[in-house]
């Protein structure tokens, strides 16, 4: 997808030109509004795909078609080099855009690989675990606030700014974390991001517990905040992945309220 080719841009797109925000999957029952709302719950803009699809603006659509054309071209080149051009394939090459036979999708509506079709136990476990982690990380933000005077005595400091900062620096991590964990989870999946952040959050808290001085503590509190923000960033997405659209309303409105109340509310468990 390096260079936009003329071929890519000229691909005819009858309904697309009239409608910059065309539904990306015409067969899909979801409206653009639904997809945009879903994307917001998942924590990304609508031109980054959710499980239910995406909405593209003119630029995003151009980019998508360029990418299709680029991969098409690359594949044709490799075929020509190998000289194994069979008749069946040759027909497909001519029609670049939206070739159904080359599109990978779920194997039917009951495909067990589709998160929506996971067994209820698995869904429940995943949602509960995400909720539990979403409960633990904010707990860290102020949990030790009552211990600060003792801590300041131990470190022989009477700096009132630092006494406040050691608590509030955690939130600073919340400013930084999501900016990186959102795209990472969109590229590599939610699971690796969760695992890495869990491990690092764990490690940062050990460091905090063993802190030899105040600066060290402030530093690792910040890092704990950064890694603690990942489940809060991705939690809405996990729940959106697992709960089907018609049941999502309540669960989602719960989640928008806060990662905390959503999971606790019984609508959650009832609906997955």
């Amino acid at each position: 997808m390096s260079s936009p080719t003329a071929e890519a841009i000229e691909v005819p797109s009858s309904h697309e030109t009239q409608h910059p925000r065309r539904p990306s999957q015409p067969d899909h029952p979801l409206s653009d509004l639904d997809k945009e709302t879903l994307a917001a719950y998942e924590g990304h803009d609508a031109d980054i795909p959710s499980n239910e699809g995406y909405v593209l603006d003119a630029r995003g659509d151009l980019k998508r078609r360029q990418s299709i054309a680029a991969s098409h071209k690359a594949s044709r080149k490799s075929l020509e080099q190998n000289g194994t051009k069979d008749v069946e394939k040759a027909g497909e090459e001519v029609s670049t855009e939206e070739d159904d036979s080359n599109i990978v999708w779920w194997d039917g509506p009951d495909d067990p690989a589709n998160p929506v079709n996971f067994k209820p136990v698995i869904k429940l476990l995943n949602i509960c675990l995400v909720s539990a982690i979403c409960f633990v990380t904010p707990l860290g933000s102020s949990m030790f606030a009552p211990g600060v005077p003792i801590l300041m005595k131990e470190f022989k400091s009477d700096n009132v700014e630092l006494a406040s900062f050691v608590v509030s620096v955690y939130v600073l991590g919340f400013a930084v974390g999501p900016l990186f964990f959102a795209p990472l989870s969109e590229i590599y999946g939610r699971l690796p991001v969760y695992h890495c952040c869990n491990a690092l959050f764990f490690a940062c808290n050990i460091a905090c517990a063993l802190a030899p001085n105040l600066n060290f503590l402030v530093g690792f509190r910040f890092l704990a905040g950064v890694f603690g923000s990942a489940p809060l960033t991705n939690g809405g997405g996990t729940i959106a992945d697992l709960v089907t659209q018609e049941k999502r309303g309540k669960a989602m409105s719960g989640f928008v309220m806060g990662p905390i109340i959503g999971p606790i509310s019984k609508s959650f468990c009832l609906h997955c």
Partner: protein
Amino acid sequence: MIDLTSSVGPVAGGFLSQAKGWRWTFWVLCMLSGLFGLLSLVFMRETYAVVILERKTLRLQKETGNKELRSKLDVGLSPRDFFLHSIIRPMKMLVKSPIVLLLAVYVGVIYGYLYLLFTTFTPVFEETYHFSSGIVGLTFLGLGFGSMFGVGFFAWSTDRVFKARKEAMEAAGEETADGSAMQPEARLKLLLPAYCLIPTGLFIYGWTAQYKVQWIVPILATVLIGIGNIAVFMCVSLYLIDAFAFYAASALAANTVIRSIMGAVLPLCGQKMYDTLGLGWGNSLLGFIGLALLPVPWAILKWGEFLRKKYEIKNL
């Protein structure tokens, strides 16, 4: 929203610090995160369909040798694009849309107040009311109850609002999907009364603590602050989702960044301010600043639509 657990944490943390020392609060966090981390290693699955399908595509490409296979959810973005989306877009929105900037600062001030209270409850109640470090954790519950009450109210009303919006949309047809069927500004109607609770709570909290009125009174004042806080946050989030439908996440991210920075930085002046001005005037200062921001929700209700149309966000 992290208010709720933030205000529950100190309850356990207070007693824990008193009994075992502050380091134990971190050990408990370790145990909890370690336990859930291990459980997730075993039981958690990848749930992001885009990535699952991408892997399936790669597997099929290998098996069939057909390099033209592509996932239905592939929009052809490179990792670089994803990062640009996530980092540059929110910043662009802060610059390009006065509404995003204004609301980010507005919510940031309120969030800063919240963390200012979090960081000063301990000294305030230890010094003024001579609470032990165990009991002092309980003083955070006022904010917690306030948030919970606010959340409960919103949980009840939101589904209703969403449904009403969808029905209005469907009735009006797809052409009005940009918001002319229902003004996103309608989301902010609750903002003004909810916001008034915050300065009110601050004035009561400050002066009752100043004159050492029975401790429950300042804590009840923080319940008001808690309700106002969560209500403002909810109203603004829902408004941003509605107003910037396509770019909602970026608008929210911009809000989160500014809010978190202010939440971390504003408390730094808290203790000094209380030392200089006393609890009464210190909190009144916060309250007066809050009152000065009172026109913000009103202005957005009035000119929000104009500003949105004038500085329309597209093709970021």
